């Protein structure tokens, strides 16, 4: 039932993305901005999300698919904000979690 | 772009049959290099030419054995299990054909092409579907040709539409002529006026 889990992740991702889009539209009403500062809560969400999605085996207590679902939700939330927002957060979160993944696997 | 021009040339409908002919013709030449040999193990084989007629067999080139309404002829078909009455047609000879058979040994073709005979066996029984298709092709071609000729190329004189069109053409023609006449009249008048002034 690998497909079922992937379906759940996808749906969670899409819901997260939609919520992120709505949220960012309610926050940022101005037109596209090229330079934006890093938003700390969003950054936290991105880092947590990416860590949960990539390093789910660190937490053995909770079933992994729940962790991944939460992680994917957060990733979706950050990645799919309005164009121009949430890019840097995503990249930072991905790099951090990749770093952790590499440490734990090597 | 040379290659673009070449591609455009391929896409001209008038060139396509010629291109096809060229490719096919060149490919046929390859056939001379391919080793070709007839596989002797064919279905529906026949005797070598002129053997039956030299033996004065009245049903000459198409005699495939069998006795009328008693025993089937010999037919080497692909799927004998699907053909419970295989070979019966080959052995059947109609009474008229039997009469012809009795008078001359040189009428074999017509004897065996009248009902009962090799071609009937193959065309109607063992490979019946081919015949259906073949004559459907003929029928479709006739439908196309006759539709075109009845509706377009034939009987053009009598059609109401054509007559109407002819009348219209005649009217426009006369209009045109009248126009031309009036134009030339005006021209002439202008010329005359110029000359007079």
């Amino acid at each position, binding site marked *: 039932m690998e497909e079922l889990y992937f379906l759940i992740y996808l749906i969670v991702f899409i819901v997260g993305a939609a919520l992120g889009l709505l949220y960012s539209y309610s926050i940022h009403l101005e037109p596209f901005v090229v330079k934006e500062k890093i938003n700390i809560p969003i950054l936290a969400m991105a880092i947590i999300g990416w860590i949960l999605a990539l390093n789910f085996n660190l937490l053995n207590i909770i079933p992994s698919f729940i962790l991944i679902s939460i992680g994917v939700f957060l990733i979706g939330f950050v990645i799919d904000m309005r164009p121009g927002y949430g890019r840097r957060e995503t990249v930072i979160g991905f790099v951090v979690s990749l770093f952790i993944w590499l440490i734990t696997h090597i | 772009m040379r290659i673009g021009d070449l591609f455009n040339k391929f896409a001209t409908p008038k060139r396509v049959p010629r291109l096809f002919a060229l490719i096919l013709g060149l490919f046929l030449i390859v056939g001379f290099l391919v080793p070709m040999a007839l596989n002797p193990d064919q279905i529906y084989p*026949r005797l070598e*030419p*002129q053997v039956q007629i*030299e033996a004065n067999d009245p049903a000459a*080139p*198409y005699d495939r054995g069998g006795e009328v309404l008693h025993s089937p002829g010999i037919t080497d078909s692909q799927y004998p299990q699907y053909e419970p009455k295989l070979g019966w047609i080959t052995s059947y000879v109609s009474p008229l054909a039997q009469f012809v058979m009795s008078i001359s040994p040189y009428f*074999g*073709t017509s004897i*065996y*092409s009248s009902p009962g005979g090799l*071609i009937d066996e193959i065309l109607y029984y063992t490979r019946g579907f081919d015949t259906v298709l073949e004559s459907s092709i003929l029928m479709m071609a006739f439908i196309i040709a006759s539709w075109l000729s009845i509706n377009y*190329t034939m009987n053009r004189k009598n059609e109401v539409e054509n007559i109407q069109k002819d009348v219209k053409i005649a009217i426009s023609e006369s209009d045109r002529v009248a126009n031309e006449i009036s134009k030339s009249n005006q021209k002439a008048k202008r010329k005359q006026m110029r000359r007079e002034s």
Partner: protein
Amino acid sequence: MFNVFIWLIAGIILTIIGTLGTCWGPGVKDPVVRTLNTEVASVGVSLILLCYNHTLALLTMIATSVICTLILLRAISRLEEMGADV
């Protein structure tokens, strides 16, 4: 001694002569000439069919080649009558 091969070779020669004549023979710019030249090739093919003892096919071939020629000649005459440039 009756030899089928003589006839076969004659048929082959006729077919090839007829084909060459139809393709690049003298005066083939006239479509009528070209159509009539195909008859030579058709006789050659008929001869080959005869050598194979395909006599029913031969009968049909004779009948259809006449009809084909008729159709072609009709098309030619009709087109020339219209003054079409094809």
